[in-house]
């Protein structure tokens, strides 16, 4: 039986186990939306902006580990996806975006709502396709999903001209998805793994530095077993928070710019770094020439381009984190003698004790306190999604995660506007979880329209806005490094007499038919959080927090990571 291109697309999505798509229709995807109308297996969430759709698909993917799917029309619909694709690419999130394109005979004609979508999205996708024949759809979708979730995951875009959505052909249920130029090395070279392990065991001061690869390969258990077996300290990047229990005695916090004193001390004083699924990002290393001066580096990553990019690895292992750690654990179990890292561990944890993360616990309503209370009241069992800014760093610092896929944040691209749609997508993936969007007043306004999506589909998230009336993170830099010349960071009124602020987030929540709250005093925080947790609907919480609070510690941009400014 012949099916239309649109019907084949849905067959392909079903085949990949897709149950949710996020998107907005338009002229060139009406045929596809028409096919969705009859589909019983795939639920469509109409978002209010395509960027929202992309971030929802991304949040869905991060929370579930499955591939997120979004759909947009040609031209402006497709260009609105770009930030979402770039966000997913930098954090290696599996996603498939389907865009409509003008009819094949109009491609290249500056037709109405035509954009060169594959051209525009090339640098922000792992791969993209322009479909030129309805008979190719099945194979292209199979390849797209395979690429999105395998190797180093990432977003893939498929651009489908409208005539091809309508054209008919037989559906090929089992196309060959193999790609001759793409064979990610999963296992890693056994000899190299052995060499790497021997080198690790020969060290006296070992630091385990794990990144997002731990989450995407599902290697948390193996990482924990490995760290405990060796009794060595573990630092996690922003992308892997929760990949090792945040309450474990071996965990020393995140490294880098807003990292803990202990983690940065460990880098600067260790003699061996075991990097797994992390990429020595500049936010982690600070000034590269002064980074980890005494350390040899064993680097495990599935992406060879991540190895020896910023920092040269002494022993590279190209492979999947989980599979390599597993092999190392087998080799370890045959070892009779383990190195003794206890003295080193004590050295590091002493720094952690002497210089812990902290904040002033006084009368003032401080943003860190709000997060701390969320942590205590939810007993660390919620899923936290963040926007980008100071609140994001505080969320990482003061909410502790014991499980992977519980802390969801735009790390690589740092996309303001990610949090609200990201939270909605995450909640759709894990409806049984309490999902809290730790947000800033600036970021929230970048995709605030998605409150309507939450309302209409009855998706409950808690939008906890730490409202400081500033683009706080930028204000902090201006305070510390630009002589307090606040340029373009004040979100509140420009007049010092006028104490009003816009928008009134409580009213905004109510305008969307949701619960809105404003919390101004410290003593009201607990009751408000409990009320929000009890609510069945999305809640918008406007916490009027201290305006000029800073994130500490901070390593100035371009400085060595032991040049730390901390709370006085």
């Amino acid at each position: 039986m012949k099916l239309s291109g649109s019907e084949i697309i849905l067959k392909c999505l079903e085949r990949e186990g897709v149950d949710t798509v996020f998107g907005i229709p338009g002229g060139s995807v009406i045929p596809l939306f028409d096919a969705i109308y009859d589909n019983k297996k795939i639920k469509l969430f109409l978002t209010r902006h395509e960027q929202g759709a992309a971030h929802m698909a991304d949040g869905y993917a991060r929370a579930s580990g499955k591939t997120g799917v979004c759909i947009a029309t040609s031209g402006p619909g497709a260009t609105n996806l770009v930030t979402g694709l770039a966000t997913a690419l930098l954090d290696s999130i599996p996603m498939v975006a389907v865009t409509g394109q003008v009819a094949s005979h109009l491609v290249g004609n500056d037709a109405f709502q035509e954009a060169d979508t594959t051209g525009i999205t090339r640098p922000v996708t792992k791969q993209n396709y322009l479909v030129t024949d309805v008979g190719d759809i099945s194979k292209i979708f199979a390849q797209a999903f395979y690429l999105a979730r395998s190797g180093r995951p990432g977003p893939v875009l498929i651009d489908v001209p409208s005539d091809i959505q309508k054209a008919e052909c037989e559906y090929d249920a089992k196309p060959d998805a193999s790609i001759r130029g793409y064979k990610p090395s999963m296992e890693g070279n056994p000899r190299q793994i052995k060499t790497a392990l021997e080198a690790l065991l020969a060290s006296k001061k070992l630091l385990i530095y794990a990144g997002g690869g731990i989450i995407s390969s599902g290697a948390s258990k193996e990482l924990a077993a490995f760290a405990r077996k060796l009794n060595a300290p573990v630092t996690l990047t922003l992308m892997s928070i929760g990949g090792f229990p945040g309450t474990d005695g071996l965990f020393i916090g995140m490294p880098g710019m807003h990292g803990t004193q202990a983690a940065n001390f460990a880098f600067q004083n260790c003699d061996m770094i075991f990097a797994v699924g992390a990429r020595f990002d500049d936010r982690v290393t600070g000034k590269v020439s002064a980074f980890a001066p005494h350390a040899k580096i064993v680097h495990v990553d599935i992406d060879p381009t991540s190895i020896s990019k910023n920092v040269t690895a002494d022993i590279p292992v190209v492979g999947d984190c989980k599979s390599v750690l597993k092999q190392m654990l087998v080799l370890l179990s045959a070892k009779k003698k383990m190195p003794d890292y206890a003295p080193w561990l004590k050295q590091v944890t002493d720094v952690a004790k002497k210089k812990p993360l902290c904040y002033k616990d006084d009368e003032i309503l401080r943003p860190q306190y709000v997060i701390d209370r969320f942590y205590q009241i939810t007993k660390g069992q919620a899923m936290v999604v963040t926007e980008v800014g100071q609140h994001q760093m505080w969320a990482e610092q003061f909410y502790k995660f014991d499980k992977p896929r519980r802390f969801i944040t735009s790390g690589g691209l740092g996309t303001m506007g990610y949090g609200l749609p990201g939270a909605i997508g995450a909640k759709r993936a894990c409806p049984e979880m309490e999902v809290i969007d730790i947000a800033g007043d600036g970021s929230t306004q970048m995709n605030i329209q998605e409150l309507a999506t939450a309302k209409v589909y009855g998706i409950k998230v808690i939008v906890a806005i730490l409202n400081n009336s500033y683009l706080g993170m930028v204000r902090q830099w201006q305070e510390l490094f630009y002589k307090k010349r606040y340029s373009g960071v004040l979100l509140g009124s420009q007049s010092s007499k006028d104490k009003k602020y816009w928008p009134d987030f409580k009213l905004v929540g109510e305008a969307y038919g949701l619960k809105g709250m404003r919390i101004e005093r410290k003593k009201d925080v607990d009751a408000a959080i409990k009320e929000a947790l009890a609510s069945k609907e999305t809640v918008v919480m406007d916490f009027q927090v201290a305006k000029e609070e800073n994130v500490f510690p901070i390593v100035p941009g371009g400085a060595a990571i032991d040049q730390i400014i901390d709370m006085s």
Partner: protein
Amino acid sequence: MKHTIAAMVENKPGVLAKISGLFSARAFNIMSLTVGETEVHDVSRMTIVVKGDDKILEQVVKHLNKLPDVIKVIDFKNEEFIERDLMLVKVNASKASRSEIIEIASIFRANILDVSADTITLELTGRETKLEGVIRLLRPYGIKEMVRAGVVAMSRGRK
């Protein structure tokens, strides 16, 4: 340092853009890039000459390998290989200089493709150093127009 790399790629639209985008996004400087068909009908071969240290070369090779549309990459760094460039060059030639130019052409085994009242057009293949040598010799006569195809390369022997 100059490095020569060959990449076997899928012969389909968009692939050249993906490869050139890879270079521009990372500010790798391409000195020459050629594309052509191969013994396999749906595979094209690109020969890319880049400038940079070994570290840049390593990154280039890794990034090329990472592209799903790239089937195979040959890095000629540690190999014996043959490389050739093709050049067409139109030189001013007066009655007086014509014979000198023809002599240069014959020494370097260049073909004379076209002769007019005041120009000669030569075709020359060879290694880059040879081409550059000829250019140096022809420059005093006045080069009116010149085009080079870019380097193509292949390893020696059975490989």
